[in-house]
């Protein structure tokens, strides 16, 4: 619990309008898009400057109060909730764009700036911010940095860390630092690279210097239809083997297509076993040649139909189907669990077969929506919480799915991050020495352990927390995959 003196001090730092301390007010911050993991903070602070963030962190340091950073709250890993109470620091009032420097292809923004808004601000001049998670209409740049967000176009362009030149942060030790600059290289250790993806456990991002790219000359979007996900996966492997790096290679299977068509109506062929949404971008002559090759490959891999978007409207509709998918899944199932595992892309067909076998064994429907180009799967395990035993089977299937992917040489999470949802799973991928190294790294930035405690790293069993049953995980309508 926070003392009245503490709350007064907090209000002095961020202004009385910047503190939420009522029970109802705090409840609205008790979870992010992963609504099972709930933990209301003892107070929410909404600073408007980096200096205020620094003062809040130092106040919490003095009093030994946990700090939980939060951007737009669109994460799906239970990262932006406060299981141990403390002060949640929300960046929603930090929305300034300090500078757009197109000569140096960069922009400096506060963490609360919305991803898509950043791109829109520079689009007319011919530039964009490449990381495009499906939640980009709502998610914040700071949040993108915290989770090292991806999105369909990261196949070609990389993930957030490849587009961050520098960060201003308040570390867990209370230091306000600028890491990196406009220069494309720095001496010393890559602290920016370590901070991105650290999920608020090393510090709070208070400004981001992002790299901007020039828009490509041309874009081509193709929808290829298959009778099975295996065929689609083999096609993806063949495209990559042909030396084509597409801008995006997304796959949806039959249940996913059904949900999209019922919920959104993107023009996906209902009843098809799978579709591949393929996007190429770059110099016009290059993408024309690549498109020709891709069509050839699709045909020789049993594509039933190949459709090329004729204009921007058609392209947008195809993407609306993909990016709006998670909102449509409610048409298929009441409840669902979501994975974010990565497998080597050459193992995609094998992974799909394994996943289908697991779901069949547990008598559950699993829908597939995934970034086929980089092997990042998003199996959606459908269940009905009201049917006895289904949740348990879903949890079991979830665990087996993940183990199967790791056994193929994959990774626990490709873009969503770890949070609390996947912390225990890190043990599937890393040994004790590896995890110990990470724990020590964390301590360097956060010596007293106040920064987002309980997130990202598995707790040591000796600490008395159970690693037993993975709690039920449900995502609400409107969550993004």
């Amino acid at each position, binding site marked *: 619990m926070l003392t009245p003196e503490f709350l007064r001090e907090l209000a002095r730092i961020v202004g009385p309008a910047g503190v939420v301390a009522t029970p109802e007010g705090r409840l609205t911050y008790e979870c992010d898009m992963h609504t099972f993991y709930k933990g209301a903070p003892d107070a929410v602070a909404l600073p408007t400057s980096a200096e205020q963030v620094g003062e809040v962190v130092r106040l919490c340091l003095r009093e030994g109060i946990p700090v939980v950073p939060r951007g737009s709250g669109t994460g799906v890993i239970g990262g932006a909730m406060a299981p141990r109470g403390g002060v949640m620091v929300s960046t929603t009032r930090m929305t300034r764009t300090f500078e757009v420097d197109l000569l140096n292809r960069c922009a400096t923004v506060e963490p609360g700036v919305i991803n898509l808004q950043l791109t829109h601000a520079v689009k007319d001049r011919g530039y964009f911010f490449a990381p495009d998670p499906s939640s980009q209409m709502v998610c914040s740049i700071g949040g993108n940095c915290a989770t090292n967000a991806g999105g369909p176009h*990261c196949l070609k362009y990389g993930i957030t860390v490849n587009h961050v030149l520098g960060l201003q942060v308040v570390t867990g030790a209370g230091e306000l630092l600028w890491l990196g600059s406009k220069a494309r290289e720095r001496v010393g250790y890559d602290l920016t690279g370590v901070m991105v993806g650290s999920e608020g456990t090393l510090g709070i991002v208070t400004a981001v210097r992002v790299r901007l790219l020039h828009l490509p000359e041309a874009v081509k979007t193709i929808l290829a239809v298959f009778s099975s996900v295996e065929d689609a996966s083999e096609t993806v492997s063949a495209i990559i083997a042909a030396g084509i790096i597409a801008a995006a290679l997304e796959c949806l299977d039959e249940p996913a297509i059904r949900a999209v068509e019922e919920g959104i109506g993107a023009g996906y062929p209902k009843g098809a076993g799978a579709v591949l949404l393929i996007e190429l971008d770059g110099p016009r002559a290059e993408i024309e040649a690549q498109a020709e090759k891709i069509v050839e490959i699709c045909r020789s891999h049993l594509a039933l139909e190949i459709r090329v978007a004729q204009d921007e409207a058609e392209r947008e509709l195809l993407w609306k189907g993909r990016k709006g998918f998670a909102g449509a899944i409610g048409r298929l199932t009441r409840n669902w669990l979501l994975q974010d595992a990565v497998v080597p892309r050459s193992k995609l067909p094998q992974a799909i077969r394994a996943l289908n076998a697991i779901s069949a064994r547990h008598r559950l429907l699993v829908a597939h929506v995934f970034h086929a180009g980089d092997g990042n799967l998003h199996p959606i395990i459908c269940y009905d919480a009201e049917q006895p035993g289904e949740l348990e089977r879903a949890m079991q299937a979830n665990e087996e799915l993940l183990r199967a992917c790791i056994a193929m040489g994959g990774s626990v999470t490709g873009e969503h991050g770890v949070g609390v949802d996947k912390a225990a799973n890190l043990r599937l991928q890393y040994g004790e020495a590896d995890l110990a190294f990470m724990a020590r*790294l964390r301590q360097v930035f956060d010596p007293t352990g106040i920064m987002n405690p309980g997130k990202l790293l598995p707790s040591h069993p000796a600490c008395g927390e159970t690693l037993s049953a993975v709690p039920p995980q449900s995502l609400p309508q409107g969550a993004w995959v």
Partner: protein
Amino acid sequence: MAVTAAALGDTLESVVGRNYLISDPLRLTSYAVDGSVPRWVAAPGHVEEVGALLRLAFDERLAVVPRGTGERMELGNLPGRVDLVLDCSRLSAEVAYEPDDLTITVRAGLSLEALSARLAPRRQFLPLDPLVGSSRSLGGVVATNDSGPLRLRYGTARDLLLGVRFVQADGTVTFGGARVVKSVTGYDIPKLLVGSLGTLGILVELTLRLHPMVEAEAHWLVSFPSAERAGAFLAGIVDSALQPSRLELLNGEALIGLALPHAPAAVAVTVGSVPPAVRSQGEALLTLAARDGGEVRALPDGGLWRRLGRLLAGALLVKVVTAPALTAEMLSSVDELARGLGLRARVLAEAGDGVLHVALTGDLSPEQWERSVILPLRDWVGPEGGSVVVEAAPQPLKARLDVWGPIEPGVLAVMRRLKAEFDPRGILNPGRFVDRM
């Protein structure tokens, strides 16, 4: 626990075998690091041996200096102490090549050219092209974060390293990152180790992201009457949808050194793609060049790129990093500075990234080098957050200054905490990194 030098030597020998430990003073001199001759050179053949060597070094507080092929051993401040040089060149095995995933895992001692030969039959490559040394080891290139012109399109080691196995100061073999192209599981340990000069751990195994070779490539050299005009040309390319693979700005002295037609400045460009796209981009480049008064010469092949490294040999080598848009201006300033001091300066710059390689020859005292060249350069780049690293210089100059340049104290403090945490006994390449850590 061994206490005498002879006993230590015996223990080291028992780890790597007699043939792979050097303790003969005559042979050791060729392994000197900036004049400091080591007491031993050990060449482990397995990752376990690296672990054992470091455990011993940790126990006995031996200063360990990692070495790949030895071509860039001079990078860094003068060493504090050199007890054991760890020659990683025997660790060169390929662990797993997955062409269909565009990834490869190799031991860190493998050379760039050996890797290139391995990948070429599958029409794949690793786009790391430091100007000096295709014979260098991958571990060396990653540990020094060395890069070349291809960074424009493909990024540097920071973007290409997916997973890393390394040995900590106490001998613990540790893994970070992943073997797949996309992973955010836990902290990004590979990023921490890139460019760290072995000061947090010795790299033994690397998982790298590969790229498909382009179908066709064309190269041009565009000469300009001034660095300013070259700068306008560069700005035009950067502010367009053109996708060159390489964009290198050269000064007059560099052109002379390459036996190319003289001009105050020139830009070498590579475009790689399918033939129609190479042609169309080439046409666009011609248009831009004409607009900015450039004289275009189509090059017969990519041979020019292989010759650039030689320009930097035997000189005082400085790497200037500035905001990319200031590259041409910086080149002008360097030219002017050199002229004023009677020096010859050859400049090669990765213009899209603001990285200038400056090779200086001339007759200055160490004090003059520092006061009249390095400090002014550092003043110029300071405001934009750039850096000036003295990459190769005579020892008397290196003794006078920190080759890496200043780091903001708050940031440096965090770096020192990292070093203290992972190398508490200060045995990993002591004295060589930033702030002489």
